[in-house]
């Protein structure tokens, strides 16, 4: 359960958002600089706002510029209490390598694995799939959708094809407003911005 009734100002734009969300995966979309990342930070209390936010703990958060710590993959995981990886995980073969040497996609997987190990009831993910190849992107989308069955998952993304595949309700940031729309409506609105 996530409920947020907030007003905040960023780059001279005022936003007012009022949401009540139950378990599930929700996308947050909109053009660059529209306020998406800021909204996440508001939810986390990292950005000033007026109003009230309630989220079920534990929280999980993957920021836009996630980067592993300068240690081995194994140590990065241990920090989060992960001692064993499923053998299907692409990280398994790279356990002892320095995490800094992973590819962009592998780093994203690492971050996701770490955060999900905490079994958060609210999971906030900021543009994790931006630099991933198709297979990885799809795998992550599915993982998050699946996880949405037990938690509130918010995924900020730029990628319209994600919306097409997942077809989940989307919080659309457009022209200083934020609206929670069903998938199709959100997509139509996005198309309109092309004209």
């Amino acid at each position: 359960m996530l409920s947020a009734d907030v007003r905040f100002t960023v780059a001279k734009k005022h936003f007012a958002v009022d949401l009540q969300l139950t378990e599930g995966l929700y996308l947050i979309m909109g053009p660059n600089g529209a306020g998406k990342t800021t909204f996440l930070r508001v939810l986390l209390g990292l950005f000033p706002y007026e109003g009230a936010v309630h989220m079920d703990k534990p929280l999980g958060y993957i920021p836009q510029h996630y980067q592993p710590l300068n240690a081995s993959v194994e140590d990065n995981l241990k920090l989060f209490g992960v001692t064993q990886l499923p053998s299907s995980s692409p990280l398994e073969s790279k356990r002892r390598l320095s995490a800094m040497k992973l590819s962009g996609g592998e780093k994203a997987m690492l971050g996701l694995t770490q955060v999900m190990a905490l079994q958060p009831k609210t999971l906030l993910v900021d543009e994790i799939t931006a630099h991933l190849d198709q297979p990885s992107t799809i795998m992550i989308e599915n993982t998050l959708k699946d996880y949405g069955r037990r938690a509130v998952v918010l995924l900020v993304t730029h990628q319209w094809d994600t919306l097409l595949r997942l077809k989940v309700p989307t919080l659309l940031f457009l022209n200083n407003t934020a609206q929670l729309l069903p998938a199709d409506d959100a997509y139509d609105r996005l198309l309109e911005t092309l004209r």
Partner: protein
Amino acid sequence: MDLALIGRTLVFTVVTTAMACALALVVGTLYASFVRSPWSHLSFWRAISSIPPVLVGLVVYLLFSRKGPLGFLRWLFTPKALVVAQFLLAMPMAISLCLQQRVNLPRDMEEFILVNLPSKRIKAMMLHLRGSLVNIGFLTWGRILGEVGAATLSGGAIVGYTATLATEIMYRTNLGQFANAIAMGVVLLLISLVPSMVLEVTSRAQR
């Protein structure tokens, strides 16, 4: 060429420098892990680490002189004061390099740790710093190794007791004992380069 002298001086230099560096690394790691906003501390420690070494030596002398506040320890002109001086030279550098490492972590990641693992913040930082400790160690090693001014003022450069390779090179050169001086110069060069060469080789092997 007096091999025994060179050998003893080498051992003494390596041990004292290593002690000072190790202590500096510990302080640097702990400091950089605990501090809440590394960005504001970074420029301060950077400035401090460019204090001329000989000034540090003077401060150590005044501290440990019999008329000074720590004179009762009787550490002046003993290896103890020398290591203190070396440590004071290495510490600001270690702190600023550790802080730099932490600052290299995007602000996002600070928030990542804060939100996901608030109770393990310090442990996470220490883990992150651990990877660069070896490099930082070598940098502080280099800063201390060739230093003459502070070493002389704090330890007295007493032959056979507090003389390092650097102070001995100066002394033997002044005495006209060029063979000894050059030999020690070569040794000094080796011990300043060998650690980084070893690191280069081992890290290549890892790839």
